[in-house]
């Protein structure tokens, strides 16, 4: 990386080693973030993949361990030069069926997110279409039509159901 005339711009790898199946799943998730979700910030693509494995396998260290030791060597805000894939329908996902059964949170006017993780959260409509990226603090949603929406933190399986009212 330090070599001025060439080499690499960044690298990500288990330090010192992960488990084979965990590594495979982890790199697949990173590639999904880049290829299918058009994530171009390297740190976000790696971060979301690590979070996914840790959330999916909280007690199996072959998976969460591989994610834990996976280290990003490079600038986490680096924008990868891979072109945006215009064939991807921006932000369209499948909302998990169980998300529709939750008791909803009623929201009016503004949506408040308290955690820094809010910067990685996205609001989806009932069809799974991305509506907007969210940030910590107050998010102005007065321009949205009343109805059912879902908040999802990137890399998290959980979708929080909200009902937006006038």
């Amino acid at each position, binding site marked *: *990386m*330090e*070599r*001025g*005339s*060439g*080499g*690499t*711009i*960044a*690298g*990500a*790898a*288990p330090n*010192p*080693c*992960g*488990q*084979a199946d965990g*590594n*495979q799943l982890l*790199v*697949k998730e*990173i*590639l*999904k973030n*880049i*290829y299918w979700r058009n994530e171009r910030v*390297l*740190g*976000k693509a790696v*971060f979301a993949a*690590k*979070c996914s494995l*840790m*959330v999916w396998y*909280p007690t199996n*260290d*072959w998976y969460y*361990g591989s*994610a*834990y*030791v996976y*280290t*990003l*060597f*490079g*600038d*986490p*805000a*680096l*924008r*990868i*030069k*891979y*072109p945006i*894939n215009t064939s991807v329908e921006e932000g369209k996902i499948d909302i998990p069926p169980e998300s529709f059964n939750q008791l909803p949170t009623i929201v009016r006017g503004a949506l408040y997110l308290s*955690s*820094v993780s809010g910067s990685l959260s996205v609001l989806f409509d009932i069809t799974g279409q991305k509506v907007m990226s969210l940030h*910590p603090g107050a998010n102005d949603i007065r321009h949205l039509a009343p109805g059912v929406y879902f908040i999802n933190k990137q890399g998290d399986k959980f979708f929080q159901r909200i009902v937006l009212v006038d």
Partner: protein
Amino acid sequence: MKLGLCFILITLAFGLGQADYLITNPDSLLNNGCDYLIVSYDSFTDAVYPLCQLRDSLGLEVRMTNVSLIYTVFDSGPRTDRIRKFMERVYNYWNPRPEYLLLVGDACKDTTLGDYVPVRRFPKFSYSYYGDLQEHGADNWYVTLEGNDSTPDIIVGRLPVNSFAGTESLVNKIIRYETSADTGLWTRTVMLLASTDRASMADEFDTTFFRPAGDSVYKVYESQGSSSYLRQKTRAGFNQGAVLVAQVTHGGQPPGWYGSRTLFLYSDVDSLYNLNKLPVVLGRG
């Protein structure tokens, strides 16, 4: 696009002064706020300012601190614990909390040899480690700050640099990479390296992601030839340019990528001249 690039270049030339980024007193270390936080080994700090200006120009609020100030303010325990206490302070009191943490300086188990920004070491997980290692280092620990899980709460990366000149070189590469408007063929080329026992895993990446996207895939598979042939082919792949390198091999000693044969050695880096075609390497390990 061109206007955006001009804006970045103008901001880089006339952006905030260095003093605006660097935290120099304990109170500012305890109470502050930013989007992008840099913790740097003291002697490398001056080489990082251009990166501060780049991130600033792209809309991120940037703060940087030397590790020595952290050690002064949080003055008890091992150095890793002090950095961790600082990050707990940042997470709980800074407003806004940073979204990114960049560590500038390599870490080394031997504290007399290149241990600039240390990493906490932990006992190994239940699976086998290469060379029967019994522990691992994890930057992740610095950013697991909320709840009882291992999930990171800040996006962390590390520039594993070992000198001022190395820091300057890598920072310049990052700036060149991000400000270049180059959209050449290399930005749609992926280099895929695979040991024989992991060829099917590499094929899965190829058929799931690379080929459906229409990328050009440059394959270096162990089955293709001798070690010297494979190393030459890997070097050629780097030099012709790739946006991603997916390394689906084993690591090993001397540092390199292996199957039963050798696909790449650390010493091969001296033969890389891909100046403006720098890949991100995803290690499958």
